[in-house]
């Protein structure tokens, strides 16, 4: 009887223990650690970060540059075209250029960034930015009113991009 019990016990022990996947982000905290923010950075077609604990996020808000750290006051900010810096737990900084969107800080250090388009800065071509910029500048002074307004919007985006694209 005790042999059977010992046998089952050894079978259970020899079963490979579950690997608690530490692949980048550890999920499952009930609360965010006191020195981190839980970031969700999503696009309509893709989630770049989903509930990832990071150290700091810098945002290009329409009201100015905004740095979000742990325990930031809850706020809703409209974002303009610009660079989002994310300082991850490992200390590495990732930068994404966004076309625009919104950032929401909720109580408990939860940050949600929603953007329409976001790409790492390396994915942009400085030559294309320059040629688009010239085109948009030309269009912003000629053509119908709507065309001029559209060109002005493109100018804002491209000027922000030309400051960072290499």
């Amino acid at each position, binding site marked *: 009887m005790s042999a059977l019990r010992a046998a089952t016990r050894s079978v259970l022990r020899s079963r490979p223990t579950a690997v608690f996947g530490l692949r980048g982000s550890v999920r499952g905290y009930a609360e965010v650690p006191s020195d981190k923010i839980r970031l969700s950075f999503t696009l309509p077609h893709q989630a770049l970060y989903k509930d990832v604990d990071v150290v700091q996020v810098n945002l290009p808000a329409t009201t100015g540059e905004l740095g979000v750290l742990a325990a930031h006051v809850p706020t809703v900010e409209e974002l303009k*075209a610009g660079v989002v810096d994310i300082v991850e737990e490992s200390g590495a900084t990732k930068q994404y250029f966004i076309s625009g969107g919104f950032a929401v800080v909720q109580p408990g250090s939860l940050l949600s960034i929603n953007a329409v388009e976001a790409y790492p800065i390396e994915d942009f071509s400085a030559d294309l930015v320059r040629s688009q910029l010239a085109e948009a500048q030309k269009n912003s002074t000629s053509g119908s009113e709507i065309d001029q307004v559209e060109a002005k919007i493109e100018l804002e985006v491209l000027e922000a991009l030309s400051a960072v694209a290499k």
Partner: protein
Amino acid sequence: MTFWKEAGLTYNRYAAIAARATRRALKEDKRILAERREQMDIRAAKWEDGKQGEYKDIKTAEASA
């Protein structure tokens, strides 16, 4: 009030134009994948006397309407 709002554009339109500008500035391979997101094919058919007309793509359908 922002300049685009004064001109009559909605936020959605503004966001779409800004997104289009960023997509066009991407490097070759990423740009091709991104520009697929802009493509929209809409077809319309005109109804007359309870009968559905021929399907045409939206531009020609609007032009002939």
